[in-house]
């Protein structure tokens, strides 16, 4: 290798490292700023914050607009997570272990809410919910959010089913176990990490959902993301940073839980059950 080659190489390497450092700052800085602002003692939005205080977290729980929307979010997220997980796991089992006609089309339909732009889904669901009187209702939110989160459950469960050897099930059936026992004793423990990460994904996505909620929400019933939206559009106050920090902690918790489960789930296919 000649000297000039080494120089060009060093130059490109330096450029790449500089870009990498700048991008890491670019990616991380906004979240750092949000977390810092959420502890601000100032009465209005200013950065850097003049001092430390928990006033914005207190406001979330004392201001009815914020508190009611947080409660609404929890009321939506929990049933959505359960419903999407049950329906999605069933669908994944049905898809993975049978030859239904039009399997590709069914899989495509179940995955479609990821591919179709959410604004289209939002306008469409708002349109039919007006006729069905579901706008601004808890059941409307649960139904809509279940549709949006179902693909994530189906794909995580399908992925973990692919790692389960079908011969375990055949062996159990041959030995006289009923299909339900086969599922409960063999398949379920093996795909449990996939089901749980599907549940967590569904809950995070539902909690963070804005566009559909914006359409189907009402002034009296709206989740916290819609309240945040209204806040950003109007007089911005640091309470949104406090919600943002809570949301972020929730996602971080999910990310860590998912990693722990994946570590527990991978390895010998039979060590997942204990």
């Amino acid at each position: 290798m000649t000297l000039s080659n080494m120089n060009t190489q060093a130059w490109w390497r330096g450029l790449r490292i500089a870009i990498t450092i700048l991008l890491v700052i670019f990616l991380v800085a906004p979240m750092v700023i949000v977390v810092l602002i959420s502890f601000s003692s100032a009465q209005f939005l200013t950065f850097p914050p003049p001092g430390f205080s928990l006033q914005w977290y207190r406001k979330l729980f004392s201001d009815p607009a914020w508190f009611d929307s947080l409660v609404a979010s929890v009321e939506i997220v929990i049933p959505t997570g359960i419903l999407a997980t049950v329906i999605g796991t069933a669908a994944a089992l049905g898809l993975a272990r049978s030859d239904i006609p039009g399997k590709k089309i069914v899989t495509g339909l179940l995955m479609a809410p990821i591919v179709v732009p959410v604004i289209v889904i939002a306008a469409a669901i708002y349109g039919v919910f007006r006729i069905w009187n579901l706008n601004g209702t808890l059941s409307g939110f649960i139904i809509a959010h279940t549709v949006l989160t179902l693909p994530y459950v189906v794909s995580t469960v399908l992925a973990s089913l692919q790692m389960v050897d079908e011969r375990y099930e055949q062996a159990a059936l041959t030995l006289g176990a009923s299909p339900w026992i086969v599922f409960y004793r063999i398949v379920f423990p093996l795909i449990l990490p996939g089901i749980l990460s599907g549940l967590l994904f569904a809950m995070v996505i539902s909690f963070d959902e804005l566009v559909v909620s914006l359409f189907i929400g009402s002034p009296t019933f709206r989740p916290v993301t819609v309240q945040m939206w209204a806040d950003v559009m109007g007089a911005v106050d640091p309470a949104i940073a406090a919600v943002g920090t809570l949301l972020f902690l929730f996602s971080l918790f999910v990310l860590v839980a998912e990693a722990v489960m994946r570590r527990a789930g991978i390895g010998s296919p039979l060590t997942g059950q204990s």
Partner: protein
Amino acid sequence: MNRAWLVVPGLVLLLVVFAYPVGSLLLRSFSDPVWGLQNFRAIIEQPVYFKALANTVVISGSVTLICLFAGYPLAYSMAQATGRLKRLLIFAVLIPFWSSILVRTFAWLVILQQRGLINRSMINLGIIDTPITMVHNRIGVLVGMVHILLPFMVLPLYAVMSRIDRTYSSAAASLGAPPVKNFIRVYLPMSWPGAINGIVLVFVMGLGYFITPALLGGAGDAMIAQLIEAEVSDLGRWGVAGALALVLLFGVAVTFALLFRVGNVAARK
């Protein structure tokens, strides 16, 4: 053993609360208020719609290009790094992935606004005298969207790059290929499938963007999604909204079709 019936609940839910609503929204582009092509004619003829269509393609395209040129070196660094540095880089890419779009857009408002972090620091340092406008215009939209979509470029690139066998590049170097040529002829083609995946993901997701352009963009940066929202919630013109939705879906479908074509060509090579 046939367990096909397990699909039924999910299938029914998707048919009733997804396929039917989306189908009727699209149908309304031809039937609302009367049957005909008037809604599509309106999109083509009225400048406000045409401008939004153009904005959508231009903004999505610029975001994709920026993500490609910024994300490629970052993904390369991730693939090269080891141990703690590698984990740190992956974490940095995943953080925005896992925090709310709305919250991050809010953060950019704080950073970019007239009396925001960047303007004040630059004035204090004496670099500028008057604040630069960086929100409620194209700059704000691009910064916000790149921040959200960059991970969707970096992760597919990283997935491909981490499987590239470095002995090819070493072989080319020992045979006398200069570094730049070596990179362009050896490494770049091998990493190209990841780039294609990233390009399609970022571009398609960008087409339907609503939150970021609405909060960080100006009046002149309206994209299709914002018009759909306005037509439905403010104006109640379902026909035009349906037509815009159809155009948006068409754009998504065309992009995916191009991906498969390019992907097949790449696979055959």
